[in-house]
């Protein structure tokens, strides 16, 4: 079996693109589609792939080696998806050589395109404030929602970095949100406890997971769809449990 280096590179390129997209939170069917397109334009006839949210198996067809990439970390990084998509488009349209595409993908893998953390924190806080108004809250409660939402997001992110257990970090974050809101209402800085909690918890809601789970299920990717659905359910449950803990103490304190 002879494998020339160009083919090897093409296979690596497809798999790297797939892994990057999956890690950034793309839909499974899009990952499959992207890899199929890249493989087709590189002349890998009969290429096929099997994608789940924890790993990708890519078979380049013929008597070439099957390769596997496992996905260990999952985050939401829409910028990364857009960049990989652009590379795949460029490669398929022939505007980019295989070598250049691979280098670009490597650069995307190394690069950090995230917004600075303080800006994300601010965004979460501001989003909480606007949700309060959307859900019919009073203007005077905005500061409470702003602080609770920002701190909740902060706790969720820092705990996730430290412990790597998503369930725990979300549980703690929502408990913090609940406690802060309760404190705000008790000290008279906030009026409606329910609305403050709902608004401040919104930045933790697994929105991307829910949409992706549904779209994967509808596209026939039942493995990935149920896996993502389970992750979304677990997250929602963690948030609910954190809030429930605080609410259950409300009567006592």
């Amino acid at each position, binding site marked *: 079996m002879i494998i020339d280096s160009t083919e090897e590179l093409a296979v690596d390129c497809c798999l790297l693109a797939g892994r990057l997209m999956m890690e950034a939170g*793309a*839909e499974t069917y*899009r990952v499959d589609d992207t890899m199929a397109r890249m493989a087709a334009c590189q002349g890998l006839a009969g290429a096929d792939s099997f994608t789940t949210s924890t790993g990708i198996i890519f078979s380049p067809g013929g008597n070439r080696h099957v390769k596997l990439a496992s996905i260990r970390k999952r985050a*939401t*990084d*829409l*910028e*990364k*998806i*857009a960049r990989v*998509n*652009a590379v795949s*488009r460029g490669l398929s349209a022939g505007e980019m050589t295989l070598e250049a595409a691979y280098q670009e993908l490597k650069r995307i893998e190394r690069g950090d*395109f*995230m*917004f600075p953390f303080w*800006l*994300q924190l601010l*965004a*979460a806080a*501001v*989003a909480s404030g*606007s*949700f309060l*108004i*959307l*859900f019919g809250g009073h203007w005077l409660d905005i500061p409470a929602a702003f602080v609770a939402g920002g701190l909740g*997001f902060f706790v969720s992110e820092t705990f996730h970095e430290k412990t790597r257990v998503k369930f725990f970090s979300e549980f703690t974050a929502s408990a913090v949100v609940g406690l802060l809101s309760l404190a705000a209402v008790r000290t008279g800085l906030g009026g409606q406890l*329910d*609305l403050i*909690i*709902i608004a401040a*918890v*919104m*930045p933790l*809601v697994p*929105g*991307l997971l*829910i*949409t*992706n789970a*549904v*779209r994967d299920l*509808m596209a026939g990717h039942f493995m990935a769809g149920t896996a993502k659905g389970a992750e979304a359910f677990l997250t*929602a449950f963690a948030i*609910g449990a954190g*809030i*429930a803990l605080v*609410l*259950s103490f409300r009567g006592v304190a």
Partner: protein
Amino acid sequence: MIWVINGICSFIASAMFGIIFNSPRNRLLHCGFVGLVGWLAFLAARDLFLGGDAVKASFIGAFAVAVVAHLFAKRYRTPMIIFSVAGIIPLVPGGTAYNAMRNVMETHYDVATVHAMEAFMISGSIAMGLVFAEVIIQLVFKNKRRTA
């Protein structure tokens, strides 16, 4: 006036979620716009036409989000998910789910079940809205290509 305030707040909230989800920088305003369209469609449907039925209104809101997101995706040649994810967030039934849980904690299980069912139905109708819009748009574009 209430519409203007709602529009501004949904725009800000969706754009902020664009930052949290790390959307490309030059697409943040588009994310906000998608959220605005979805929320106003939801609100108009719920309060003006359906008499407070949040389940059907969520379908309409999600449908609007998916249509606008798809048009942006075609226009800027980026994956649709970049626009739709932030736009869908305001529609998520956070309040209903919260009420369900709160009633469970207060051992009002009968009220809790009603809220939980509503939250479940709303999530389902959001999903239906997204998928229906996508399928219909694909049919439209396919027909256009065939006639062109």
